[in-house]
């Protein structure tokens, strides 16, 4: 047997077969092979975090030198702005107290209050077009476990970013909305809006767009129409803003398609929020007020501003803080 494995070709074939077996068994849902990365997570994530921090510090240092004069000027402007904002905060605090009173009085339900929101920072991005999953710094130790399903991921403005695909001890993989494997049931954000399917597309993702299919035959989508999650399928809660229709193609009336520009800018996102239902009973579909959407999705690096990020009363945890 040993002599057999000394033969290079036999050894290479054996290793190849083992790798193919790992790929095949790992793809089976619930297979123990899908947890093969957990030990790696314990070793690699801290190293990756250190790299990330070093890189950010170097980048900040050079930015500080390069933008010194500009920063000084900006600093003066910001001081004036801070004074102004402090006044507004006082006003806002009063408004908040009043809102709480009104909320209790009218039993207004907060959007997604049945969801626990976990804040996380992006650890690593795509390696190339085919290895394009995002890794974030919260995992099973923060209560994110996808063995029973998956969770929606949103940005600081509650716009849909993607879904959690797998979790390790300290990190999770997120499938972004632009990926060709991604799909979500959506509806036009009007009363009785048509339900459609939003999917990632190989060609469109280069332009930051998604494909919209399964459009009912009698529906004509207009550029600028907003799509939100429909809640069908149970994975994504209803009402999460996805994006706006960019174009509509009805050349084949039996299969009309449209392109959608997501609100979330995946390429520049630094922080994400994972929506975990509080319990099985709470997996209801509360509607999000459409006003929560915005096309301005610049990444908000301040995970500290937790209450602001969701605009809801849902509890927020920061991956960095843990």
């Amino acid at each position, binding site marked *: 047997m040993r002599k057999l494995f000394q033969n290079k070709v036999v050894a290479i074939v054996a290793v190849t077969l083992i790798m193919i077996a790992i790929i095949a068994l*790992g793809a089976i849902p619930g297979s123990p092979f899908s947890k093969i990365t957990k030990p790696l997570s314990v070793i690699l994530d801290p190293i990756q975090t250190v790299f990330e921090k070093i890189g950010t510090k170097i980048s900040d240092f050079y930015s500080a030198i390069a933008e010194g004069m500009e920063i000084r000027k900006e600093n003066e402007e910001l001081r004036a702005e801070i004074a102004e904002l402090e006044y507004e905060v006082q006003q806002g605090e009063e408004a908040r107290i009043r809102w709480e009173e009104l909320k209790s009085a009218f039993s207004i339900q907060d959007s997604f209050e049945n969801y626990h929101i976990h804040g996380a920072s992006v650890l690593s991005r795509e390696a190339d077009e085919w290895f394009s999953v995002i890794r974030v710094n919260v995992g099973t130790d923060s209560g994110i476990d996808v063995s029973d399903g998956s969770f929606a991921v949103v940005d600081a403005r509650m716009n849909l970013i993607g879904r959690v*695909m797998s979790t390790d001890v300290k990190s999770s993989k997120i*499938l972004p909305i632009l990926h060709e*494997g991604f799909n979500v049931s959506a509806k036009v954000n009007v009363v009785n809006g048509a339900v459609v399917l939003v999917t990632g597309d190989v060609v469109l993702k280069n332009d930051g767009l998604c494909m919209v299919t399964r459009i009912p035959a009698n529906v004509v989508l207009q550029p600028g129409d907003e799509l939100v999650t429909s809640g069908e399928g149970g994975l994504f809660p209803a009402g999460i803003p996805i994006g706006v229709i960019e174009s509509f193609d009805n050349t084949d009336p039996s299969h009309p398609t449209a392109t959608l520009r997501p609100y979330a800018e995946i390429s520049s996102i630094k922080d994400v929020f994972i929506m975990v239902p509080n319990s099985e009973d709470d997996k209801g579909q509360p509607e999000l007020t459409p006003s929560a959407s915005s096309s301005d999705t610049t990444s908000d690096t301040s995970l500290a501003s937790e209450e602001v990020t969701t605009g809801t009363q849902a509890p927020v945890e920061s991956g960095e803080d843990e």
Partner: protein
Amino acid sequence: MNKKERARQIIVYAIYIISVCCLQVSFSGNFRLLGRSCDLMLVFVALAGYLFGTRDGLVVGAIVGLLRDYFSGTVVPGVNLEPIVLFGVGMLAFFYIGLLASVLFRKRFRRKYMLGILQVALISILYYSLCHVISFVCLSVSGNLNTYHSFRYIVFSSVCPQVMINVIGSIPMLFLLRFVGPYRKGVRSSLIDGYSVEDRKWQSV
């Protein structure tokens, strides 16, 4: 190879592998040319295999591929619209890149340093072309193929720019492997013996 050399080899390889992988997945977006960033992992595996032989190519390729799977990962659309995570595809692909780099043109090139750049270009063309083919097949089989890139796009906007960026990235990588390690003087002695070149300068152009 004595214990000291072996230790140096392992430590230097470990540093290279971790650095290359972390750089690629963390900061590749900051260093883009023609809309693409250098695939440092591929360049590193191709050069390690080319310069230091089959064993190094295979081992380094498998480890780098494993880390590529871990950090980024491959997801393919499933038949019932449910995406499937495939772990190990990178490991398998890079294992073969390491193998290929160590055998392709070995006799003719005799592992001359500067021709390593050509090796990187060839392997890049092969890798990206195959990825497009596999991607097309996977999407077709799963019934999720709405559209796919035109041949013109694949050649002129995907493969060619990526090969160019990889070639540029291979130059500093080549110098690193030559002057920093993993072997002293950038030469793996067991490979020289295999060729019995008199002046022992067979790796220079």
